[in-house]
């Protein structure tokens, strides 16, 4: 494969802190290798800013291998950029062409306030998980996996839901700023397992209540979340969440 380099125009959202209004700034980066990751390209931009006495662009990242969910960038009108089933850190510059202009925005939702530039506060997700995304009944010591009464297909579905890395792209993608895909993944992966059974009603009740308190919107099943999710969490989980909620509403005291 031939190796190419490119020059790019970046239109980046700059915002000092939560309280002040932000604005776009134009930057030019040159000699970017197509083998670089998007975040490496951002590192070069920041080196450039530092050496010229500017303020580097703040952005979140941690693992840089697609598993932690920190790298929240809304690139050219899509969370995590143009590729499907992909995180920003795993996006590579071969997705772009020489002289492209790339628009980079933070996740936008009132429930995810901007801390600085492209960094947003996603602690709302932590509080939703704290409201019920765990098992607190005593399930005993680790048992032989084969002794658990669960079908393979259910276990697989649960695992697929547990793939959610809590990145928040679903909220960023949704016109309603709804966190329902995230919540449904968290509710589903426990609801599908025998260990999740005893607390399923209180879990869904408390997690939905917390979600509303955090100020996310309601789901209208547009499907944008599923299309943007780096882990391809299925929107069918949202229907399962709704069923869990109806059952809890009708039968819980």
């Amino acid at each position, binding site marked *: 494969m031939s190796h190419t380099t490119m020059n790019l125009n970046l*239109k980046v959202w700059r915002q000092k802190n939560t309280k002040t209004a*932000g604005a*776009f700034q134009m930057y030019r980066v040159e000699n970017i290798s197509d083998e670089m990751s998007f975040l490496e390209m951002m590192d070069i931009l920041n080196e450039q800013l530092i050496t010229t006495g500017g303020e580097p662009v703040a952005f979140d990242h941690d693992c840089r291998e697609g598993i932690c969910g920190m790298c929240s960038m*809304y690139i*050219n*009108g*899509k*969370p995590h950029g143009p590729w499907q089933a992909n995180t920003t850190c795993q996006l590579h510059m071969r997705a772009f062409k020489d002289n492209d202009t790339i*628009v980079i*925005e933070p996740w*936008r*939702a*009132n*429930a995810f306030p901007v801390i600085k530039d492209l960094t947003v506060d996603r602690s709302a997700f932590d509080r939703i998980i704290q409201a019920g995304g765990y098992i607190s009944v005593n399930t005993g010591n680790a048992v032989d996996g084969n002794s658990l009464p669960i079908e393979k297909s259910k276990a697989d579905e649960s695992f697929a839901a547990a793939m959610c890395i809590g990145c928040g792209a679903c909220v*960023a*993608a949704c*016109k*309603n*700023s*709804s966190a*329902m895909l995230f919540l449904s993944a968290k509710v589903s992966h426990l609801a599908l397992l025998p260990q999740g059974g005893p607390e399923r*009603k209180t879990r869904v*009740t408390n997690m*939905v*209540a917390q*979600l*509303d308190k955090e*100020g*996310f*919107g*309601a*789901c*209208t*099943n*547009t*499907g*944008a*979340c*599923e*299309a*943007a999710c780096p882990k391809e969490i299925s*929107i*069918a*989980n*949202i*229907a*399962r*969440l*709704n*069923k*869990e*909620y*109806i059952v*809890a*509403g*009708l039968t*819980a005291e």
Partner: protein
Amino acid sequence: MTFKQMFTSSVGKKLVMGFTGIFLILFLIVHAGLNATIFANDGGLMFNKAGHFMGSNAVPRILEIGLFLGIFLHIYQGYLLTLENKSKRAVGYAVNYDKGSKWYSRSMAILGTLILLFLIAHIYHFWTPSRLGGMGGIKALGEVEHNGVILHNLYAEMDLVFTNPYIVVLYVLACGSLGYHLAHGFQSAFKTIGVHNKKYHAMLTSLGYGFAIFIPLLFASMPISFYFDWIK
């Protein structure tokens, strides 16, 4: 969880939309079925008899109250939901994400508003004269006699209303909005009320597209057929 919580949380508001939406879908089946009797080509006799049954029998009259309540709830909750959801993103994007979803799934409130405007005209054209005709200066419908029973001639009223090309165009456009509203709404409503089984969901999605095409086309064919005098 209290029932109040159940129907007023973010999931609960959607439950109201879903249940009223499915109720309206059922209503559309009855409405389209009854109206299709105009195609019997019997000078509207079967249609007027059906209209008489719906207007004089207690069960459809009670269901009619439910229908008005359902429409009101659906519209009220629909606007509330749309405005609330909009308010959750104070600072918008420079580039919107429109590739991940269908335009009509994002335009339910606009499509619904077009349906609502049509609905007002529609109620004024047919429901008002048929239910309230003769009261307080509202024009009464003509009447026909069949086997000693006096029937409202709703058929003649349709024939009359649909001589106006603007009204025909309005009705056909409304059918288009309804089609797109249903193309998203039909399958969405079942997701909302908790159908997550992939097999059923695939079936309902296909059925929904079929419904969203067939029912509006059937409705649209009525004003068109009257306008061009295709039915006798």
